[in-house]
């Protein structure tokens, strides 16, 4: 589904991604781990189409189609979703209306009619129940004044509404309390099927106990330096990154 080949990206002349290769197939769950500042969020951002980063080399394809020149919305229309590490506050736009606009713009791009209001409401109700979101949140301004955990839960609610093919969850677990983590992980698992894929960016293997990855990758300094199965996450949690760094140096 997603193929990243020798991806280099820089910001303000500073190279942050230095040759990323990654292939994600339908039905798979990938975890990406790595120290602070190693480029995880940058990778997620570049896949989603953030123009702050300049892609200097490489290619990104989604279902065999090059997406490097597409604006973020068109990538979204192709089924790419990014759950932000730091969701942005948008005063004046309620969660509900945001979701309506978002869904209808995606439908419009596919040449579909607007979703009928009752269907929309039903969907909103269903998905907010799945993520145990209080209805009063839905009429609040998007992320404005939400707690850290509430923002993250709201991101997954949006994912549930948009039903992407590829969901990249950037540290969705950080900021969630134990119960919330379970609810959110459960939500992600319910949405998971053989046709879609999830990329989890995380620092903790706790999340990976709920959402079990098929692959774990380690990013160091803008490169994937090690990949393995789910046991790699335990090893990292246990030993830190130093041994990986040493391995790379050798």
């Amino acid at each position: 589904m997603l193929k990243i080949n020798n991806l280099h990206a820089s910001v303000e002349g500073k190279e942050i991604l230095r040759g990323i290769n990654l292939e994600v197939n339908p039905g798979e769950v990938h975890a990406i781990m790595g120290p602070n500042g190693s480029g995880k969020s940058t990778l997620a951002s570049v896949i989603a189409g953030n123009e702050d980063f300049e892609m200097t080399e490489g290619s990104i394809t989604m279902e065999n189609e090059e997406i490097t020149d597409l604006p973020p919305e068109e990538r979204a229309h192709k089924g790419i979703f990014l759950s932000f590490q730091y969701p942005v506050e948008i005063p004046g736009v309620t969660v509900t209306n945001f979701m309506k606009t978002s869904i209808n713009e995606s439908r419009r791009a596919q040449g579909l009619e607007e979703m009928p209001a009752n269907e929309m409401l039903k969907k909103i109700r269903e998905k907010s129940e799945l993520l145990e979101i209080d209805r009063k949140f839905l009429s609040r301004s998007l992320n404005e004044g939400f707690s850290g955990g509430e923002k993250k839960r709201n991101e997954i609610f949006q994912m549930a509404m948009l039903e992407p093919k590829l969901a990249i969850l950037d540290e969705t677990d950080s900021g969630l309390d134990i119960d919330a983590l379970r609810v959110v992980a459960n939500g992600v698992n319910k949405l998971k099927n053989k046709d879609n894929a999830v990329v989890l960016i995380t620092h903790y293997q706790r999340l990976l106990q709920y959402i079990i990855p098929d692959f774990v990758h380690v990013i160091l300094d803008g490169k994937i330096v090690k990949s393995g199965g789910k046991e790699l996450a335990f090893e990292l949690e246990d030993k830190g990154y130093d041994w990986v760094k040493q391995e790379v140096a050798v």
Partner: protein
Amino acid sequence: MELKDKLISSFMAFENRVDIDHPVHDIRTEAIKVFEEKGFPSKKDELWKYTSLNTLLKNNYSVFPKDEPGLEFKDVKKYFIHDIDSYKIVFIDGIYSSHLSQTSHEGLDACLMSSALNKPKYRTVIEKYFNKIAKKDDSLTSLNTAFSREGAFIHIPKGKVVEKPIQIIHFATGNEASLMLQPRSLVIVEENAQVQIIERHQSTTENAVFTNSVTEIFVHERAIADYYKIQNDKQSASLIDNTYIAQEKNSHASVHTFSIGGKLTRNNLQFLHKGEYINSTLKGITIIEGKQHVDHSTLVHHSEPNCESHQDYKGIYADKSTGVFNGRIIVEKEAQKTNGFQQSNNILIDDKATINAKPQLEIFADDVKCSHGCTIGQLDDEALFYLQTRGIPEKEARALLMYAFANNVLESVKIPEVKIRINKLIAMKLGVNIGFDL
């Protein structure tokens, strides 16, 4: 001939058309003298520093419109808020249009200034209110006063809650290559009465129109008056709107101004307080582009204790458009416990757009709560990216952010159909087709 000279010399011709024995005519004669002495304002005037009338004044305006202009309702229906029942006072090229109007003398007067000036039964009301709060040393107001003859006359008697809004629409048809209009309106809301008014100036062609309008509004004890100005005229039309509001004890008055169209728009909006526990609201949304210019010059004069005023203006400026916000609050020594708030928030979409925002607080009382805030910024790129990742195209995402920025001004709009209409106008202006039912 310069417009000033042309106007002064046409005053004599004007006198042939009105009753010069009416006491109002003395007021007109005084006013033309003030205008003759002062002329049009120039950039040398502190209050006109950022708004120049020079290009406007170059047109050779016809000052007396031709009679019998015609407009069919079906052609201008879209300019009305037509999905609600309302009274309508409609003018075409300055002349009352009976077939587009729906006036009333039943339980209230929603009619014409010309009949209020001509009919003896209105004599005492006119003497009591006419030109009592309009600024007598203001040149443009004086010019309007000198030529005052037609406009809306609205008188809501004690205790009357008017159940449907009153729409005042001034159409310009382009019958003349360029036309100057000077509507003069008077609104009196007696004790405990309530009224909602929607006003619009609208050209139907691209011919130049220059409107210099004056409205005096008197809001008596415990009365409520809500005024909505929809300024979405053609790019060939310019408007100077002078609105003076005097409020008595415990009254509420609000003016919402939506400035979207027009070439040059200047809103002089003044509130005078004549009692305690008065509430005044001044709100505006300005969204302009190209070379459009919108200038809001507001004044709330707090002269009594325990009153409050709320000013909230949002502006979005694209291309080379220019905005001015000159917001004044005066709090007299006697006006203790005044709450005076003022907010002006602006977004510049392009480098070449400008806004001159100048809050002026003159406070002479010591026990007051007054604040003002002025911000000038750009659209937040991070927010834009966030919206785009959710499948909302850039143009729509920008529009949504702009709308979100301005929309709290709409929260206090009490007529849902007006709110819907403004939403549509904003969406059209921003070139998007999304429902902003936030």
